[in-house]
């Protein structure tokens, strides 16, 4: 195994690695790499073309001139792996077909137990390739599609083509272009009209090769009157070299449909995490983004909802936790394009040590969006004197009847709260963690129980040795 594939995982929970040698590993950002990816996946010609064009777009588009410093990333682009194929045959339908080594990895991640509980289906991504995939039989009977994005393209090409990259075209931003060129892995979900999926669909992702950029692509279509909750947990081992994650998530919420997308990401602190998430909601529909961001070196992520149809609604709830050496630039966008649309943004950030958490958000109300309502609440909690936070709330309101509220607070971890909790027997760290958990409660109470528990555990780890 090359030196740069060695991990330094001791203090990172998911920081174990497997001794599996990948079948193909493509380094460097070139048309050659892109062609090979497309070839390895056996894609139709139009997709190869799409990828190559997107790569050109990527090179043409400027680097963002705002937000976190990406100059280090710019220098390193050719050092990343853009495609890694693990030694598995392809999507496995049952647990038995999954290779032993990979199974062990999953066992350490607790996936088999999780599956036995509430999962409707498990889409687990191992590096670029989905090796294990299963949808519960009743969902299949209802016509629900929950497969890897590759399988989506192969098996449902027409449906796929109708929606793919229509909401986030490669020209949208530099990282959407990059993802469009080298995308690999992710989920394809379709819920037919009127079908309500009661249990959440979950996908587990794991990046497992050093220097490897993960470029997952997820496409979710919720047809008229349908309902779905999609959950993604992300966690990756530590690497000696920096890593890149650039995802694109597109969600189509049709008339009167109801959808939620929940993700808690806990990246190693040398990861660039640059993700484009966008949903469009038709008349009477609803979409929630629930977004938890821990770890990473840099995160830039602004889940967006376009409220396209009359009465469409959306909520964007997010958490960011920035520690020393980390800059998390996160937020949300609400684009009101129709009458009676309403939206709510709740953003909670925590900065610890010299960490920096920025809120960057946009509320846009177009001239025809009469009676649009939007409420923005962003709260920052600073743990240490040197912790940093900033807020960039953009508003473009072109309709007089719109009702827009904005509230921003910055607070510090208060000594009197810590002392009060300590006098009840909680240690200083426990007290601080409890205060942070309380601060996040308006968002975490929306999480499924196992996720809330896991998040609280992560917060406790993050808060260890924090005060004093």
């Amino acid at each position, binding site marked *: 195994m090359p030196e740069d594939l060695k991990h330094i995982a001791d203090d990172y929970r998911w920081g174990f690695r497997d001794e599996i040698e990948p079948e193909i590993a493509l380094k460097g950002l070139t048309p050659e790499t892109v062609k090979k990816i497309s070839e390895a996946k056996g894609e139709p010609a139009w997709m190869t073309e799409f990828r190559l064009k997107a790569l050109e777009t990527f090179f043409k588009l400027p680097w963002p001139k705002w937000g976190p410093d990406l100059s280090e990333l710019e220098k390193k682009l050719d050092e990343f792996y853009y495609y890694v194929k693990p030694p598995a045959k392809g999507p496995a339908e049952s647990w038995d077909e999954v290779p032993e080594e990979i199974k062990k990895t999953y066992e350490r991640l607790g996936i088999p137990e999780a599956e036995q509980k509430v999962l409707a289906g498990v889409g687990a991504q191992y590096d670029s390739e989905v090796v294990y995939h299963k949808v519960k039989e009743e969902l299949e009977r209802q016509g629900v599609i929950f497969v890897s994005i590759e399988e989506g393209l192969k098996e449902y090409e027409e449906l796929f083509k109708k929606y793919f990259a229509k909401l986030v075209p490669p020209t949208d931003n530099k990282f959407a272009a990059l993802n469009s060129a080298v995308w690999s892995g992710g989920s394809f979900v379709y819920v037919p009209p009127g079908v309500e999926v009661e249990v959440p669909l979950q996908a587990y992702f794991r990046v497992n090769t050093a220097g490897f950029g993960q470029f997952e692509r997820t496409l979710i279509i919720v047809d008229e009157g349908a309902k779905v909750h999609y959950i993604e947990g992300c966690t990756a081992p530590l690497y000696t070299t920096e890593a890149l994650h650039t995802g694109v998530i597109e969600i189509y919420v049709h008339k009167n449909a109801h959808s939620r997308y929940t993700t808690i990401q806990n990246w190693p602190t040398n990861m660039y995490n640059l993700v484009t998430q966008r949903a469009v909601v038709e008349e009477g529909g609803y979409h929630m983004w629930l977004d938890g961001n821990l770890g990473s070196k840099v995160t830039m992520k602004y889940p967006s909802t376009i409220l396209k149809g009359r009465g469409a609604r959306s909520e964007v709830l997010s958490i960011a936790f920035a520690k020393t050496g980390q800059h998390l630039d996160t937020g949300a966008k609400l684009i009101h394009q129709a009458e009676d649309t309403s939206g709510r943004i709740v953003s909670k950030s925590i900065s610890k040590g010299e960490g920096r958490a920025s809120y960057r958000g946009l509320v846009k109300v177009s001239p025809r969006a009469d009676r649009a309502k939007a409420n923005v609440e962003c709260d920052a909690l600073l743990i240490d004197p040197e912790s940093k936070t900033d807020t960039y709330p953009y508003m473009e309101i072109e309709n007089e009847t719109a009702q827009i509220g904005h509230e921003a607070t910055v607070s510090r971890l208060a000594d009197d709260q810590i002392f009060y909790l*300590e006098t009840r*027997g909680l240690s200083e760290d426990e007290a601080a963690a*409890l205060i942070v958990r309380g601060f996040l409660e308006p968002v975490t109470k929306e999480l499924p129980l196992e996720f809330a528990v896991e998040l609280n555990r992560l917060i406790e780890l993050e808060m260890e040795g924090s005060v004093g």
Partner: protein
Amino acid sequence: MANRLEIQDLWVSHEGKTILKGVNLVLPLGEVHALMGPNGAGKSTLGKVIAGDPNYQVEKGRILLDGEDITELTPDERARKGLFLAFQYPVEVPGVQVANFLRLALKERLGQEPPIAEFYARLKEAIELLDWDESVLSRYLNEGFSGGEKKKNEILQLLVLRPRYAILDETDSGLDIDALKVVARGVNSMRGPEFAALVITHYQRLLNYIVPDVVHVMMDGRVVKTGGPELALELEKRGYDWLKAEVAGA
């Protein structure tokens, strides 16, 4: 000495200002003592320093809990040894549910996760004793509580955690007579050979319901007089001036 909370010649300052000037006080297990005195005498400071508030500087003296010197211990270490302070101004902790918080605190108090059945039994008993509604358990800790509710919540914690030594700092202030009776009922239910309380109050009123074994009077950072329950009545009638004169004359 075991089975007592003992303050020995305690001198305390805050940002260079000396607040406590040689406090001596003994609270034996099984007794309830009242601590009275005019505003600014240093009563709250004493309570907080016993609980381990890091904002105050102990210049001299010792605090002994069951014979062990706890002067250098952190507040949580003291709490785990069975010390409890009901705050004069309880602190709001948004987003933290009362039940959740109590479970964490009880876990620390017992040194292990309390069996769910025991935890709920304690909660239920305490809530009934306080004439309260179980809905309080899902509210956020002191957030949006009225002054009276905050005080009641301190007693709820006292009843669930069952400390050995409790300091109640003006738990009566701001309470109407019914709430006062409820709070007193809570404290009285704790009385017994394994419990002691130092009840800080301005008013004789509370002491009609929580009858103390001993009354201490504090002035200008010192305990200047100690007596029986009749001392509280005398202070109620005559105020503090005569005592001031007595102390000055002595």
